[in-house]
């Protein structure tokens, strides 16, 4: 009886993750119900807030941009067999690169500034992920612990740099000097009227390109093959003559560079300055996005959109239903990580039984 029939591919790829997400939302709904609020009404308000009008939709896509980058940063490392919990810190340090290049060349037209900010941010973010990569590759320090610690080190380091070095005199709030309007990455609203004054900007296009790039890199390049080989079987990889330590370091650096694009979206465009704690949890959402999206760019895009809608809809919800705070979104995020990540196989065995029975019945 212990012979297990593997699930059909579509069930494994689409149905199982979808059921897990539905389960996470059902439990979220029960929690909302438990405090005496109407979950269906909440969902209605959130959908309306996230997609119902141009400005709201623009905000949704702005958050989606952040979550795509953070999700890709986790996914990429995951393919190489590493759990990168560090996008939060990598994005934060990436912000330093973005603001340094922007303030040094302040006044440059955005079309030139945009690529420079991408490169500078990517270098800083890559550096912040590269160190845990080196420590894992050369010294065997566990990447999960080191990336968590590096998030904390980033908080202290950046708070020192922002409050003591970058903060101009006479400014009350903890932030750097502003980037000139001409140097900022333009909002999509300037080209497409629908989005109005919403913060979604050209970085969103960059996020779409990044999805394509990661797809190509992981599944259609030699490097990606080596990366997946490392993730599946490190021993076989070594016998195949692939240097695992080199792979680990490069993959982590790439992941850090992707995470740093969160900073381009925020520092380089919307805020136009480096603000204390600007990442504000977006890096951690990346963990949920990556697990929910099964580390595949299409999955990452869809789950980033879902979380983008949750974040924007959640803001709306806080106005319309004061009984539900936006922390409910963090709870949903937790449930999604729990059910799609840690308990992802809970429904696998019942589903296998179901499909195995279906197969034998149709066979006879």
């Amino acid at each position, binding site marked *: 009886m212990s012979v297990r029939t593997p699930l059909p591919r579509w069930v494994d790829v689409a149905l199982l993750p979808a059921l897990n997400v539905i389960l996470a939302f059902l439990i979220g709904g029960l929690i909302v119900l438990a*405090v005496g609020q109407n979950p269906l009404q909440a969902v209605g308000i959130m959908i309306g807030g996230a997609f119902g009008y141009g400005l709201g939709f623009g905000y949704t896509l702005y958050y989606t941009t952040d979550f795509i980058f953070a999700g890709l940063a986790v996914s990429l490392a995951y393919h190489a067999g590493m*759990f990168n919990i560090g996008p939060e810190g990598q994005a934060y340090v990436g912000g330093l690169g973005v603001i340094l290049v922007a303030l040094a060349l302040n006044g440059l037209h955005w079309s030139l500034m945009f690529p420079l900010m991408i490169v500078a941010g990517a270098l800083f973010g890559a550096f912040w992920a590269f160190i845990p990569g080196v420590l894992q590759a050369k010294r065997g*320090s566990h990447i999960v612990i080191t990336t968590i610690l590096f998030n904390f080190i980033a908080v202290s*380091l950046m708070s020192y740099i922002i409050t003591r070095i970058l903060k101009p005199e006479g400014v009350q709030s903890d932030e750097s000097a502003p980037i000139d309007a001409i140097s900022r990455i333009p909002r999509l609203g300037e080209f497409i009227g629908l989005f109005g004054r919403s913060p979604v900007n050209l970085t969103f296009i960059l996020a779409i390109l990044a999805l394509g790039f990661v797809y190509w890199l992981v599944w259609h390049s030699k490097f990606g093959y080596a990366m997946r080989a490392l993730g599946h079987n490190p021993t076989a990889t070594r016998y195949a003559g692939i240097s695992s330590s080199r792979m680990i370091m490069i993959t982590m650096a790439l992941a850090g560079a992707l995470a740093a694009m969160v900073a381009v979206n925020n520092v380089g465009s919307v805020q136009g300055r480096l603000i204390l704690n600007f990442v504000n949890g977006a890096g951690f959402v990346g963990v949920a996005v990556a*697990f929910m999206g099964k580390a595949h760019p299409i999955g990452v895009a869809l789950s980033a959109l879902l979380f983008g809608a949750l974040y924007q809809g959640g803001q709306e919800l806080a106005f319309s239903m004061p009984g539900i*705070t936006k922390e409910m979104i*963090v709870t949903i995020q937790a449930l999604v990580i729990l059910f799609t*990540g840690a308990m992802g196989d809970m429904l696998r065995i019942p589903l296998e039984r179901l499909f195995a029975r279906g197969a034998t019945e149709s066979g006879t």
Partner: protein
Amino acid sequence: MNYFNDLILILDSTVRLAVPLILACLAGLYSERAGIVDIGLEGKLLGSAFGAAAVAAVTGSPWLGLFAGIGVALAMSGIHGLASINLKGNQTISGVALNFLAAGLTTFLGQSWFHRGGMTPQLNNDQRFNPIVLPFAPELAGVPILGPIYSELISGHNILAYAAFVAVPITAFVLFQTRFGLRLRAVGENPKALDTAGISVTLLRYQALIITAVLVGIGGTYLSIAQSAGFNNNMSAGRGYIALAALIFAKWKPWPALLVCLLFGFLDALQFRLQGIRFPVIGEVPVQAIQVLPYVLTIILLAGFIGRAVAPKASGIPYTKER
């Protein structure tokens, strides 16, 4: 004499700040020794702090608060166990999920129940664990050197703080002198050997998780209804992660864990003390430089530059019985 009094004051706050670290660190010790990585300590601290404060506020009893705090930690350990022992899921992911769950739910439920922006109502002294004055403490305060040490440093903490310090020798005894301790260490190193000997790996790991929950539950309770008078948003503030770092630093041993937690507590106390003070050569020490020290020290240790931290062998790996 003045410097001596300063030192006593700093050491006194060192003890206060170290208590939740010690409890969380010992909690992590039990589960990691049994082969279960517990990234979720942070969330368990936060969740039990909320549970304790909410129940203490409603019932007025700190003891019921303590039970609630431990109860919350037990429930969270249950989820962790279900995911990582029964379903053989990834323990790190499950821990991360628990941290987010605590961060989200405490604020959400706090706001729904108490309408104070996620905080619980301010507790009065009857609803909290209060400092205990040890016998003769006031009388002996005047005795030079030993007087302040006894009456300031040793006396005047609450019962949960003393419990934390008592838990260290008990843990050392249980772990290294009892049959249960031997099995616990074995299940973290080589679960198959235990399984072969007819001992249930699942049961042992759940037992470890229960002890973990009790200890971290006391730690969370200490945060909200002993050290403070109510729950604040995100009041664990990374202490669970620091405790995890301390655990690695202490190489998964109880007595070193106590020392490392005291060291990290001391750094924390120092950071408040040094704010705005200028030193002759180096000038003002930035707060951030001290805040970051525990993390940097742990990284250096993990990189193997000061000794080697080797985790229990089976830690993080779900156990699958052969079919």
